[in-house]
């Protein structure tokens, strides 16, 4: 029987090694696998490369990994949200490497990895500093930049519902990078609000087919929710 449900957050991240490349879903504070990130922080893997649209704010999520000095490199489009104090501090101190990628290019590079493509030619960034050192090509009179596939060792994603086969659906704009990251990592781990029976998700409505997901772990009820 296929059963991808993982009993604990800790077990779900236990095999993430030092030096791993980890994708983390989310946009702003929407659709972030907060509890998986906390489990990863407690697990304590170091020298991580984090691929995510933002770099966390305050002491939460990715910011907590930065604060604990677990991250060697950030790959993102917008690391400087208001309140991204830990990223800004490490950046100023020269303690973190940054690969800045336009958001749509980030999405395509992630998708390319999941789809087995070597790379794509995008018009985004052509003629700008972010294309410096990259191959370019004029196709039908328009300039494009070659952007290569960006795979990961692990993807931590956030979904609304999941089942034992790994099928996932999302909540509103919490979808964002989660479905494409699910396809691009060797191991994809999904934090869900609740698990449903196999067959309960309408086959027309599944957003991430289970084949892309290795582990599904349900959120622990937060203390203040339980009170």
């Amino acid at each position: 029987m296929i059963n991808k449900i993982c009993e604990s957050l800790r077990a779900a991240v236990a095999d993430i090694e030092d030096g791993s490349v980890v994708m983390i879903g989310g946009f702003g504070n929407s659709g972030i696998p907060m509890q998986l990130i906390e489990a990863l922080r407690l697990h304590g893997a170091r020298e991580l490369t984090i691929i995510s649209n933002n770099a966390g704010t305050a002491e939460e999520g990715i910011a907590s990994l930065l604060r604990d000095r677990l991250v060697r490199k950030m790959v993102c489009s917008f690391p400087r949200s208001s309140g991204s104090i830990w990223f800004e501090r490490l950046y100023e101190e020269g303690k973190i490497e940054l690969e800045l990628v336009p958001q749509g290019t980030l999405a395509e590079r992630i998708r390319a990895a999941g789809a087995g493509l070597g790379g794509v030619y995008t018009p985004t960034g052509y003629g700008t500093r972010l294309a410096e050192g990259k191959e370019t090509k004029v196709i039908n009179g328009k300039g494009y930049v070659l952007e290569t596939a960006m795979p990961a060792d692990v993807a931590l994603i956030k979904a609304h519902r999941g089942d034992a086969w790994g099928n996932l659906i999302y909540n509103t704009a919490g979808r964002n990078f989660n479905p494409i990251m699910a396809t691009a990592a060797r191991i994809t781990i999904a934090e869900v609000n609740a698990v449903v029976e196999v067959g309960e998700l309408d086959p027309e409505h599944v957003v991430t087919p289970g084949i892309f997901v290795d582990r599904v772990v349900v959120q622990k009820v937060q203390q203040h929710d339980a009170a």
Partner: protein
Amino acid sequence: MMRLNRNEMASRVAQDIPDGAYVNLGIGMPTSVANYVSDDKQVIYQSENGILGVGPAPEPDKIDPDLINAGKQYVTLLKGGCYFDNAESFAMMRGGHLDIAVLGAFQVSATGDLANWATNDDKFPPAVGGAMDLAVGAKQLFVLMRHTTKTNEPKILEQCEYPLTGAGVVKRIYTDLAVIDVTDEGLRVRELYGDNTLAEVQALTAATLLPPL
């Protein structure tokens, strides 16, 4: 000279958004354009994080924490709207499906180069977000910005001094002084607010302006 305030500037752009248009509004002043589009027009707003049909801010008790716009503000969804992932959202933006994008800018050049993602100050970490994709993708790119910096330096220049977001991408510039089209002949003033004269506006512009047709 007549200088529009922020609301008047947003309102001026709103006049030029046609009924039925698909529009992406950048973070900051551009976002407020939606407040001034008249009710007899149906305009569909896209948000880069995967929303088509963005509605107004929710009642405080109706907030969905996942339902935010690109500026990280809580929003709602209109009837007929839908959600999708970032790959599809940027396919929509890059693929020429949006009729209009309205973005802020640090600088715009005489040939429509846009600089709005980085200054030459290396102290802060750079951030680009979706600006470069919008710049190359939308059918028409409108810039909405003050005509000059706070210290009265021109923001419309022969060449941008700041790093480019996109080359030759701007179609029209809405400032607090005038509306200017980027044309093959150069920067052509489309509208001067109040009694502003071409000479007055030219004096605050570091690129040649052509008179209104």
